């Protein structure tokens, strides 16, 4: 295998910005498209190319408007000059896409999340996605400006746009009034991200080594792919995959669940019904809603630990502090001993998601809301889908009494054979919740490559 340039430092001006840093612009809108023909697709990329933000530092001049672009496999096929032979060099999971039987083995979009009901991204001709444009802005006015620049260019070039909100009438927009980094269900998010580093020499044991995410600098013969000195490797170099998921969050079901199960909490937690509900919410997630990890703050949230990331689970082999199936303990089991089939160290994901839709009002839960999930990785199968499969079936460590259990927050409860029960160990014995409901429903998915700026330039011509 070719390992050329494994140690040559990537050029930040060639990498799309969101890969290396989370944008803090308060407004973002994610426009989802299908191309009509090759000239239109190329001209579209050309029209919006000037607004692409690279990973270079912008210093004091924070751009008011900017964007990043993702292309699915069909989008690459439609815009690139790669021959069939080299198109096949992309990894199978990316080629086949999220509705393939292979990917569904991990995503498990059964029942309420069935791809036939998605607003975009299933494998029919009408629904397949070619391109997603992630736009960011500092104000509501400039948000409207960048969105119209992109949508006008799309119209002029014959693209079809998916409007996934309110029966095909609205775009997927970040809810800008949400307190910074909070998501629906009222949790603080975006706390623990891989510490992206460029080790010299490369360090195969550092899951934050950028080479795990950026294509073209493989740490081993495990990728990321496409690898090697060939047209596909050149096209993908300095790119990164983005598993894009629109995930509806059922806040009504979640709130009712907390209220119904709070009385099961131990006596000392029952100071107020609200505190008992917070306790259940923390046990489902592994962090209190303010962000404090249960491992460091087992009894109450604490501002001092709300952004803490330096902890492990080795001292909690009974799950007394943090249940084994808590969302963050499944998403990153840290130092826990895993089954021998699992990779070590645990792979990481760069999460760049945000909330869409207004929270419910005191009067009504009506309305569409959830998470715009951007999960960045160098390998869709061995990073994103692996962790997703753990959430749907907790068979990755022998700590789980049920190997068919599920994560507390996001798993698909209709997964065949799934054990929907949730176990909260306490000093007075285990509290068992018999059947977790669907808190999260999939509305659409697309697997994109966030290509390098030079690749996008070559498409733009």
């Amino acid at each position, binding site marked *: 295998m070719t390992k050329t340039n494994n140690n040559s430092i990537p050029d930040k001006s060639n990498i799309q910005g969101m890969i290396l840093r989370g944008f803090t612009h308060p407004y973002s809108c994610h426009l989802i498209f299908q191309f009509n023909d090759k000239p239109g697709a190329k001209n579209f990329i050309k029209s919006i190319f000037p607004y692409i933000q690279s990973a270079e530092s912008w210093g004091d001049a924070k751009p008011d408007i900017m964007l990043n672009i993702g292309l699915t496999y069909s989008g690459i096929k439609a815009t690139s000059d790669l021959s069939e032979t080299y198109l096949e060099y992309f990894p199978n999971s990316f080629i086949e896409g999220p509705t393939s039987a292979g990917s*569904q083995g*991990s995503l498990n979009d059964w029942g309420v999340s069935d791809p036939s009901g998605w607003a975009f991204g299933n494998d029919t001709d009408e629904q397949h996605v070619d391109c997603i444009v992630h736009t960011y802005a500092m104000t509501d006015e400039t948000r409207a400006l960048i969105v119209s620049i992109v949508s006008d260019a799309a119209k002029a070039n014959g693209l079809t746009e998916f409007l996934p909100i309110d029966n095909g009438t609205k775009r997927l927009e970040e809810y800008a009034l949400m307190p910074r980094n909070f998501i629906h269900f009222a949790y603080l998010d975006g706390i623990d991200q891989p510490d992206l580093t460029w080790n010299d020499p490369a360090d195969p044991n550092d899951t934050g080594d950028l080479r795990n995410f950026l294509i073209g600098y493989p740490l081993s013969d495990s990728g990321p792919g496409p690898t090697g000195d060939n047209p596909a490797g050149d096209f993908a170099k300095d790119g990164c995959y983005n598993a894009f998921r629109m995930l509806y969050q059922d806040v009504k079901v979640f709130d009712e669940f907390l209220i119904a199960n709070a009385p099961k909490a131990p006596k000392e937690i029952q100071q107020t019904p609200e505190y008992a509900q917070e306790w259940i919410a923390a046990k489902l997630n592994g962090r209190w809603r303010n962000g404090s990890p249960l491992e460091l703050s087992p009894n109450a949230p604490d501002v001092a630990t709300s952004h803490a990331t330096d902890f492990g689970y080795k001292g909690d082999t009974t799950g007394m502090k943090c249940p084994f199936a808590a969302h963050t303990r499944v998403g990153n089991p840290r130092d826990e001993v895993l089954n021998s089939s699992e990779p070590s160290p645990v792979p990481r994901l760069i999460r760049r998601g945000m909330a869409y839709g207004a929270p419910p009002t005191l009067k009504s839960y009506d309305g569409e809301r959830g998470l715009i999930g951007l999960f960045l990785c160098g390998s869709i199968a061995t990073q994103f889908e692996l962790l997703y499969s753990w959430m749907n079936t907790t068979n990755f460590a022998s700590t789980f009494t049920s190997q068919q259990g599920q994560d507390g927050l996001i798993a698909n409860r209709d997964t065949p054979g799934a054990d929907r029960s949730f176990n909260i160990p306490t000093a007075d014995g285990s509290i068992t919740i018999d059947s977790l409901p669907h808190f999260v429903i999939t509305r659409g998915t697309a697997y994109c490559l966030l290509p390098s700026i030079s690749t996008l330039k070559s498409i733009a011509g």
Partner: protein
Amino acid sequence: MANPLTLYVPIKQDAVSQAAAQLAYQNFVKSVTSGLDESGIVHYARVALIPNASGQGTYAILLITTFDGPMNPYLGFFWKNPGTQQAFAGIAAIALTPPNPPVKDLTGFENFINKNNLSKSASPGKPGDLYEAYTKTVKEITSTAKELVLPKQSV
């Protein structure tokens, strides 16, 4: 949930490839046992040589396994294990249609396995083609088996 893999690979007819197929068949269990044991997710794995219609020589190699959970996230494990890598790379090397991309790294391996897999796993809206008499995982079965065996041994 268990899933099937039915890897069907027509092979070259030259004498060297035919001999390699025989060798792969004879060594299969020996070369994959430690990797499959360690994985703890494979129920059964078997290989068969499909004869040419003439009765002379081998037309294709057929490798059939049933395993717990999804396949693609775990191909990295089987690629890293020398025994299983050797078994699969050996089949790829004598394939009638040379694998594209070549099976030299995990991406090549993932693509080769998926392209030549005749089985369909059940997925939302699409029926699969695997019958299951039980839903227990290999881990669950082997841990129960140990519990059953241990008391007998201590008698």
